[in-house]
């Protein structure tokens, strides 16, 4: 018996020791809650790094500490932050040179200091450009910076970019500025791998909050920047804690406990969340649209989908309204174009094929796709049958695919599924080895859709190609003034619908559960997220 006692004593000691290892003395940076306005966010993932340019996640946490020349607001529009105003031809800050190049002048805020007290200057902006545009910077939209040939610094608070041509998206870049006095002198690879900046120890920004602590796997904590350049009365919150709660159900339960003030949830959880006392659920229209993509990259898919009339007939067989109203429980809006209705570039006058299965059947009959004895249409001895590639874990997309499968079956089209785990799905998607899929793009507030729908666009995964559309898209990218660009994009959206290159289904929503104690919240569905104006959020007692 004594031996057994000893054994258990040992095991218990081991467990206790392990437990105590996690119960060590509190970090002296952890502040007391009493009297402090601490905003607690139940956040859906742990981010990878704090460098806004090398992070592969959406970087809304970073934007509490780091600012750029511009940001996007709740109107899906770029607004200046560290720049005093956005250059345009009208305000004279964009000048065309005779050789076709352009000089674009950015006037910088002149009273801004980094969190460590250093002055923010034009040197930081040019340093950021040099880093992002260098090979290996790992920045997802690096190509958008490559049109800048030079960065000039007439004075400490003025930057002039010399572009080699006209790029309509010029106001959508420089969403963050890096500190030259911290990262200068390093190679690109050294900056990418520089842990003291990536993890926070040397992370300085100009934003309303300073980095305080990153407890691995658990939370990131930022504290008020008492010297914030917008005024000493801002920000109105003392501290923000982003707790990483990846499980959707746990996150919703966490909100129900009342221990957190803000969380993003799934659309299917909206009804449940609306009953939480003291909170409101905001359905933020995301710059992401769910759509059905058809590929022309394989021999069979070209045979099935090569004719726009066949694609259009298929689309008439899909009931988008019932998908939005029933499957998505009325939480989403029907989509008619890739560009979100909250964007000033959205064209509301585009008609997508109405749900009309009889018309779909007639159109397919006219195209010699005739119903066989097994109920599936065929033509030239080949059945109208294809595989839809699904990504495991994306329950909303899989459910949507199942509805489409059933609806297409009703008009004599056979759909089967292949479901792959995320990384495998991505690999197949980029390789073009697929026939159809329910997909979603997350667009920035800049309305350019050229990369996706240009014949040789870098993100054109379907292989769809229309020269007329190409002209409109390229024209939109060459326009610097709003009216001209909108004209091109209006026509491009019409042409995209005419060619039935894809079927927009609905605009995704991001349901956000927000405590009624929070004021000045203005939800935004862009890739900057709803934290774009954290500096003015307040937490009522």
């Amino acid at each position, binding site marked *: 018996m004594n031996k057994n006692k000893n054994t258990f004593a040992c095991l218990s000691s081991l467990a206790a020791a392990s437990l105590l290892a996690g119960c060590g003395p509190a970090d002296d940076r952890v502040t007391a809650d009493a009297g402090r306005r601490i905003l607690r966010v139940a956040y859906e993932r742990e981010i990878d790094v704090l460098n806004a340019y090398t992070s592969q996640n959406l970087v809304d946490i970073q934007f509490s500490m780091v600012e750029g020349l511009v940001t996007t607001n709740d109107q899906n529009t770029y607004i200046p932050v560290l720049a005093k105003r956005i250059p345009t031809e009208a305000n004279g800050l964009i000048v065309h040179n005779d050789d076709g190049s352009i000089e674009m002048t950015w006037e910088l805020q002149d009273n801004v200091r980094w969190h460590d007290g250093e002055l923010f200057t034009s040197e930081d902006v040019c340093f950021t450009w040099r880093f992002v545009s260098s090979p290996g910077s790992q920045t997802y939209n690096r190509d958008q910076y490559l049109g800048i040939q030079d960065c000039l610094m007439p004075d400490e608070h003025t930057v002039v970019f010399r572009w080699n041509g006209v790029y309509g998206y010029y106001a959508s870049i420089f969403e963050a500025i890096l500190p030259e006095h911290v990262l200068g002198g390093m190679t690109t690879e050294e900056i990418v791998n520089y842990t003291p900046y990536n993890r926070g120890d040397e992370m300085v920004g100009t934003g309303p909050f300073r980095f305080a602590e990153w407890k691995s796997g658990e939370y990131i904590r930022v504290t008020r920047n008492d010297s914030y350049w917008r005024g000493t009365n801002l920000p109105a919150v003392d501290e923000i804690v982003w707790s990483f709660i990846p499980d959707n159900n746990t996150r919703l339960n966490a909100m129900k406990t009342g221990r957190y003030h803000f969380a993003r949830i799934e659309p299917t959880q909206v009804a449940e969340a609306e009953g939480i006392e003291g909170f409101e659920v905001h359905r933020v229209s995301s710059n992401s649209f769910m759509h059905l993509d058809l590929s022309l990259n394989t021999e069979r898919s070209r045979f099935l989908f090569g004719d726009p009339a066949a694609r259009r007939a298929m689309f008439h067989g899909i009931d988008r309204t019932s998908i939005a109203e029933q499957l998505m429980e009325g939480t989403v809006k029907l989509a008619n174009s890739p560009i979100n209705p909250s964007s000033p570039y959205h064209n509301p006058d585009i008609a997508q094929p109405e749900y009309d299965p009889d018309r779909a059947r007639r159109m397919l009959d006219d195209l010699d796709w005739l119903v066989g004895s097994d109920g599936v249409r065929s033509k030239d001895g080949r059945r109208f049958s294809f595989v839809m590639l699904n990504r495991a874990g994306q329950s909303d997309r899989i459910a949507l695919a199942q509805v489409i499968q059933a609806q297409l079956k009703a008009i004599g089209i056979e759909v089967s599924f292949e479901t792959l785990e995320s*990384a495998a799905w991505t690999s197949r*998607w980029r390789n073009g080895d697929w026939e159809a899929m329910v997909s979603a793009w997350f667009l920035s507030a800049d309305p350019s859709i050229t990369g996706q729908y240009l014949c040789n666009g870098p993100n054109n995964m379907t292989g769809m190609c229309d020269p007329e559309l190409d002209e409109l898209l390229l024209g939109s990218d060459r326009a610097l003034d709003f009216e001209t660009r909108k004209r091109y994009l209006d026509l491009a959206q019409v042409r995209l619908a005419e060619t039935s290159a894809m079927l927009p289904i609905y605009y995704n929503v991001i349901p956000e559960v927000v405590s009624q104690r929070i004021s000045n919240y203005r939800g935004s569905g862009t890739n900057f997220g709803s934290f774009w104006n954290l500096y003015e959020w307040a937490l009522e007692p």
Partner: protein
Amino acid sequence: MMAYTLRRLLQMIPLLFGISIVLFAVIQAAPGGPEGALLESGRFIDPAVIDAYRERLGVDRPIHIQYFRWLTAAVSGDLGTSFSTTRPVAEMIAERLPATLGLMGSAFVLAAVVSILLGVVSALRQYSWFDHLGTGLSFVGIAMPVFWLALILQLVFGVWLGWLPIAGTETVGDSSLGDRLAHLVLPTVVLSFNYIAGWSRYLRSSMLGVLRADYVRTARAKGLPERRVVGVHALRNALIPLLSIMALNLSSLFSGAVITETVFAWPGIGRMFVQGMFARDYPLLMGILMLGSLMVIIFNLVADLLYGYLDPRIRYD
């Protein structure tokens, strides 16, 4: 026993080497690659960025070269750098290990104490209402999915009653021992539940066999108090097979923590493994899996040694 232990420890070296080859091959054989993380957000990506990313990580090289680079670094104690966080893998694991060990340890102690109590009482009162209840609960415990039990407990104790926190290891701003223990309760109960169910059934049947043994009858015939008969003569012998199973189960506790850690937002190794898997963070996955393999081997050795320690009939050559 010392020679046996040393021999087993030496055998670990080629075993771990073989395991590393298999793991590296399996991880790389999974479709997709780390560049998938760039595309996860659905943003437009410059394809040149993807190529540069693969080149920087070295995943564009042949697999045997990648393995050789990993191996040469690993034998010198460098488990590589995480693709997604650009931090040393060893540092990341060391950071998360205490949380996982804390959860494992507390779940183990809870499961051991409760299952022994349940098993002994069920055996002593065979076919009583307590025994039937224990049997029923054990089947429920074995059959119930971990995530479902976790959500039920969250709802009851976190949301409805408001007694316990449901995510993380501490309330930021209140890092007292009481707060940390409160955070530990629900994940511990969930992680230990399956083991309580299994171990208690195992001990019950073991005790039933032992209670009918000749030496127990002899002990009773000698007039020893029932408490001593059960506690010393019966339980000690009935525990022998269970203890070796417990030691073996320690390694499955480690892997079982994956779901529990994810649901309770517990910042342990298991959750980091899931993140690494989706990101195809090869160095991180290798580091965690090698640690897991090492733990399995060590716990097996512990089980073998424990068995010999408790059962005098077993001798090690």
